[in-house]
Each structure stands twice: as C-alpha cells, then as structure tokens.
C-alpha cells in the first residue's frame, strides 16, 4: 500500500477558547513544517488578527515575529477558500470576518525559515506559536497544530515545549 502521508503527521490541540488565543509553543526540533488550523463559529466576530512568532524558550521569551502564509474561508462555506497569502515577518493579518459564519483559517509556517529568523537575531530557535486577537467573539474556537516531521517514524516526538 502507498505510504499515507497524513498518518505521518503530528496533530496537537494547542489552544482553545472564545476570544484571543496564545497557542502553546511548539517545538521546532524534529519538525520542518507547521500548519495551524483555526476553527470556530462566528459569534459577533468582526475581525481576527494573526501574528506568528518564534521563541527561544518555553516561556516565550525573546519572541521574534516570523513570516507565514494564510488561507481563509472566502464565504460562509468552509469549502470556499482563498488563495494562500504571504505575510512577511512583522506583518499582522487582519481578517474581516463579518460575513463568515464559519471560521476555518489555515496558517502555514516554514520552521527552517523561523529558525533562520531567530538565529539572525542572536537567539536559539526553540519553538514557534501563534497569537490571535479578536474583535467580537467566536464560539468554541480551537487551534490545532499539524506538524511534519523531518523524517517518518512510528511514534512522533513530543511537540509541546515543556
């Protein structure tokens, strides 16, 4: 049987709530690509802001803004999705969610790029994470991190920094 790529990935819930969310820092070691899936139901949510960071310690110290790609729903249906849009380090995405009943946004981060950014700033590249902000609220918002390991293995390495 063909290898099932989806089964080689690491999936982890890294944040939930109804408002702004700071995800648990995700370890860079052992992984090379990261995708954050932001879901929720609109509850008078008018805007969602997204920033991506690299960290050099569990506590999230010396955080550096890093670049990322964002894909959003373009309508009320989760099937109607935008193209990937690149945000350079320091750029904050502000998504107008007024017309969206479903929140289904994806943030892709290249871990090698994040490591380069942190190292250039003189820090050790230990982890990455997202910080979202809201105008209004969502119901049962949830952020799941999907991580691609640097090599296939039966048991994934721990990804939560602790």
């Amino acid at each position, binding site marked *: *049987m*063909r290898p*099932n*790529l*989806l*089964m080689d990935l*690491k*999936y*982890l*819930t890294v944040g*939930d709530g109804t408002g702004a969310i700071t995800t648990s820092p995700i370890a860079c070691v052992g992984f*090379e*690509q*990261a*995708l954050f*899936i932001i*879901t*929720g*139901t609109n509850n008078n949510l008018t805007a969602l802001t997204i920033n991506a960071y690299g960290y050099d310690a569990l506590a999230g110290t010396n955080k550096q803004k890093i670049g990322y*790609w964002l*894909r959003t729903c373009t309508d009320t*249906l*989760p*099937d109607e*999705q935008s*193209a*990937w849009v690149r945000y350079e380090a320091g750029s904050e995405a502000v998504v107008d969610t007024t017309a969206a009943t*479903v*929140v*289904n946004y*994806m943030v*892709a981060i*290249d871990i*090698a*790029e994040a490591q380069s950014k942190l190292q250039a700033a003189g820090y050790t590249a230990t982890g990455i994470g997202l910080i979202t902000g809201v105008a209004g609220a969502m*119901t*049962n918002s*949830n952020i*799941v991190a*999907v991580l*691609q390991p640097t090599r296939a293995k*039966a*048991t*994934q390495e*721990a*990804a*939560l920094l602790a």
Partner: protein
Amino acid sequence: MRPNEFMQLKIIQRKAPIADAFNGGMTIGPINTAGYDQALFLINLGAATGGTARGKVYAYGVDVAAGTNKQAVGYWIRCGAGDAPDTEGTWTRYEAGAELTTLAANNHGTQWLVAVDIVEVQNVMVAAGYVGTGIQLIITESVDDPIVASATVILHPTFNKDTQANAILA
C-alpha cells in the same frame, strides 16, 4: 524555498463544536473523493459531563451526496492520550465493518485521528457495483455521557494544484 506540502492540503471544518455531539450519532460527510487520495478526520473532544463518554466509529463509502448505498470500509485510528495530548497511541487498523468500542472520550483536548485510504474506498465501492463518490464517518454514542466534539477533515490531493476540488458533496 522548499515546497510546503501542507499548503496543498484541503482542510475543512465539517462539524463545528457542539455539545452532546455523539447523541443520536455524529455524521461527518459525505466528503468528496474525486481529486483526493487520502483523508484524515480529526475529531477534537472537549469536556464530558460525567467523564465516562465512549464512542463507536464507523467509516463508509457512499455513491451520492445523500449517502446512499453505503459500504463499510476499513480505517486506521490513533487516539490521543487524554490529558497528555502530546503522547499519542499507535495507529490501529480496523477492517471494514469492525467497530471501535473502547475509545475513551473524557478528557478536554483529546483527539481521535481517523485515516481513510480513498483508493481503498473506491475499490470497495466498485467491487459492490457502485460509484465511489464520497466517504462518510459516523460516530455513535456507546456510553451516554454528553461530550463536546468537533470535526475537521484533511484531504490529500492526487496531484498539486492551486485550487483544490470542493470537498463537500452537494
């Protein structure tokens, strides 16, 4: 820059978080199989009222959007380890018609990952005389204990393209 394979995936929220999600059965899909070769259902579990919630998982191929002519198909499942979500179980294979009955669903943040091979599903459907149009996951409540759950579906396309095919059959 290296190609980012994640950016080729189709990811849709198919069930928003709902309370008592398994009461009466939680049906996810049908999900379109045309243009995709692998599917993964990510079930996120929230708090269970009594801490004893259990669910049974069934995977099906269907031949139309309405979900008719369902055929049971095999799947793999990996369960998160309760309050230690970073510690995963192993992938376990369940053949067509086999039901999983031992899932503990009583910890906030626990995940169930259900992987389906779409090519295998299509083979099952064709062998039964049907067109393999979609896949569907149904989770029933085997222990009556209300639990919050949501479902996200991740699909791997058969080839890379800028715009993915619709995943929701309609």
